[in-house]
């Protein structure tokens, strides 16, 4: 059968200063198919996408669009050829309106004058087709991540693209938001468009794609029919080795209650939140994005000021006014956004690890660099960070290894009693995920209390002893390990009678 290929790339090689980001990779996309592109972080998927969309020019290789060879000189060429991309981080203009975001670069212009009225009408039509709950004149910066993603998709649709590329669109979405996205993508396929879908989530792939292409270490590994490949084989293709026992959760006898939060309230964000953690216990905290999970934890740790609420550690009430108070007491937060909140990317790994404790190591206010280096090396090796030296900048590491540095930073704080991990595996690849779970298990074994915030159901079900579910700023329920199912969690996450659309205000 002569395949109806809409896009084909052959022997693409892309070199960045010092690195080969892509090494002779191939790719075929059929008309009207949803094609998943998978691989670990650093495998070259994002670079590959940027070659297709003309952001990067490949050093070698050919690209055929509907059988004809094409050379894109810039993103504009790719756009005109009918290729649109929705990137990992929404590439929106926060200070501009939805309409402008959608039409940026291909405005409706009549003799040099932008036709706002017709563009607004067109944008409204696109938003309607996506069941969006916001207006074309809204400012994008005020929308939720999910809504911004929708703007991006509307943008892709507005160019009437034949090929739509989605780069990890579900990474920041909750389960039901993802479900909505799936429906949209399927509809796009039914309209005859082709979709390339990059994701770390296997559920995304199984739910949507008919074929999957795997990259590893900048190289092309293979293309498989989704129906014809087992989960284990796929992981093997991606990681290069077999991974067994994804969630290494051991049964540990729990100790006494170590940490308790009572009646935490911050107007507009969360209300009357209470939960507790026992020594050696992993407590999951889940719910939709916008349910107030991160906001609660941030108030607990002193990042933001709660209106009311009490925090007890080992039975004693703490007064936490700022992050330092929590850290001194032994409550350590691994923040959600590694790159912005967890690490100083331009700094060496060592300095990152010792940042919170440099004062304790110092002699009379002077930094003890030697002690710092030794400690940093020890902790970084302890979590098996893939790095050459403690002086290399944190920005040079992959997402998984960056997360390990954040963990090492927490471990360096010797008074640690409670660890709070906010989305610890967000955007990191399978291999690294498993290592993070292992570390988590070991910490529990040592008797620390662990709170894990996550939107990924499999990992929270796989790792947590108890799960607190939050919905619209309140704790809507607590499930024991024995009684937990995906359905129960979903049910508790959804407000009764509401469609569960985040907390847009």
């Amino acid at each position, binding site marked *: 059968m002569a395949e109806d290929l809409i896009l084909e790339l052959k022997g693409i090689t892309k*070199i960045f200063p010092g690195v080969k980001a892509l090494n002779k990779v191939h790719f075929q996309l059929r008309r009207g198919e949803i094609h998943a592109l998978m691989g670990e972080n650093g495998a070259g998927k994002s670079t590959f996408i940027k070659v297709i969309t003309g952001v990067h020019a490949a050093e070698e290789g050919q690209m055929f669009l509907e059988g004809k060879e094409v050379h894109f000189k810039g993103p504009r060429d790719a756009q005109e050829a009918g290729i649109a991309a929705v990137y990992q981080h929404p590439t929106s203009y926060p200070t501009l309106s939805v309409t402008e975001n959608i039409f940026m670069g291909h405005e409706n212009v009549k003799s040099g004058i932008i036709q706002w009225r017709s563009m607004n009408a067109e944008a409204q039509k696109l938003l309607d087709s996506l069941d969006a709950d916001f207006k074309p004149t809204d400012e994008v910066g005020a929308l939720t991540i999910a809504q911004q993603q929708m703007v991006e998709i509307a943008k892709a649709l507005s160019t009437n693209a034949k090929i739509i590329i989605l780069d990890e669109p579900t990474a920041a979405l909750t389960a039901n938001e993802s479900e909505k996205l799936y429906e949209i993508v399927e509809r796009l396929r039914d309209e005859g468009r082709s979709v390339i879908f990059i994701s770390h989530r296997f559920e995304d792939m199984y739910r949507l794609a008919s074929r999957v292409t795997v990259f590893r270490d900048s190289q092309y590994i293979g293309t498989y029919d989704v129906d014809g490949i087992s989960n284990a084989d796929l992981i093997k293709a991606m990681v290069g080795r077999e991974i067994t026992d994804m969630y290494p959760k051991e049964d540990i006898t729990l100790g006494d209650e170590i940490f308790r939060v009572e009646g935490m309230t911050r107007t507009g964000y969360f209300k009357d939140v209470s939960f507790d953690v026992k020594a050696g216990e992993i407590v999951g905290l889940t719910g939709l994005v916008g349910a107030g999970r991160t906001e609660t934890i941030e108030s607990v740790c002193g990042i933001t000021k709660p209106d009311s609420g009490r925090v007890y550690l080992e039975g004693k009430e703490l007064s936490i006014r*700022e*992050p330092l108070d929590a850290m001194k007491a032994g409550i350590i937060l691994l923040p959600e956004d590694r790159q912005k909140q967890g690490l100083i990317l331009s700094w060496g790994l*060592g300095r990152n690890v010792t*940042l919170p404790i440099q004062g304790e190591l110092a002699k009379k206010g002077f930094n003890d660099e030697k002690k710092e*280096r030794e400690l940093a090396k020890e902790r970084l090796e302890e979590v098996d960070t*893939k790095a050459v030296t403690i002086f290399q900048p944190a920005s040079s590491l992959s997402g998984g290894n960056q997360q390990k540095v954040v963990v090492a930073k927490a471990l360096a704080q010797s008074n640690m009693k409670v660890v709070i991990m906010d989305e610890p595996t967000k955007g990191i690849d399978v291999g690294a995920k498993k290592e993070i779970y292992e570390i988590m298990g070991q910490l529990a074994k040592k008797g620390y209390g662990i709170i894990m915030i996550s939107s990924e159901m499999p990992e929270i079900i796989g790792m947590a002893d108890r799960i607190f579910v939050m919905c619209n700023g309140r704790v809507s329920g607590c499930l024991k390990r024995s009684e937990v199912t995906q359905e129960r969690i979903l049910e508790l996450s959804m407000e009764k009678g509401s469609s569960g659309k985040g907390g847009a205000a």
Partner: protein
Amino acid sequence: MAGRSGREISAVPETSIKSKLLSWEGALILILVAVNILGVAISPNYNVNNVLREMPRYLAEIFMMFGMGYILVLGDIDISVGALVCLAGTVTVLSSNAGAPFGLAVVICLAAGLLGGMLNGFIATKFTELPTMIVTLGTQIIFRGIAEVLFETWGNGGGTASMTDTKGLMLLAKKIGPFPISFFCVIIAGAIMITVLAKTTFGRKLYAIGSNKTAAYYAGIKVQRIRFICYSLLGFLSGLCALFLLTATFGSNTTTGQGFEMEVIAMCVFGGIATTGGKGNLIGAFIAAFIIVCLRIALGQRNINTQVILVIIGLMLIVSVLVPALSGALTAKKKKAQT
């Protein structure tokens, strides 16, 4: 969970004299030497005595530069300090003339600077939404405005006032050998400020805030308190600058300190401190300050048009920030060509 893969991470810092010499600071030292050679070459009067004698007026600015270095490392900016020098100088002169003993006048001078800095710090930390450029643009106009009102209401009017009792200032203007007292003060202040920034936990916190304010806050650093301290410190140093400026001018007027803020920012940037924060150190800025001072003295002795000197400084400033950017792009291109 000790290193299951047994991977070892190096913790040995790279220290080679060669790399130190080739750093920005190394280049600055070369330039400082070159400027002094140039000075001797073009002016027969360019010698240690004359250079040190001409220096005090410029030295006053260097006090302020240390504080500005801290602010720039934080990723902030303060353009109000020139006006603050004017205000501090003015209250000192007026209070001294109103009968305050010299010791009290000194305290008033430093307190005025400190209070001005604290005002900046207060607004900058309470209204973090505002860019510090705006805040200090506002206080810049206010500080000079207060000085103008003071001249009219408490002074003899006329926007200028001079110290009637100059004994104390004369003492400060004294020299030890060929070295003016302010020279030693600058060296001492420099040693302290450089060490604090480079070697202490406080300095490390500044770099952390300048590199990533959010991450620093999450790591338990009291970001706003430290910013407040740095603004207050800069204010205090502006007071010190005003005091030492008084030892050269013995009076204050509405134009005192005009343009100082830009000059000290230029010194810092030329010394390798980035206005985006988290980069550079005060050693570089310290050397750069002396480069500019020596250059001005040398060219001044050659009676070169003062405006031409400003053009040269402007060019130096642009070249000094452009060269790293261009050479960076160049090496990147080269590497690309090699692979």
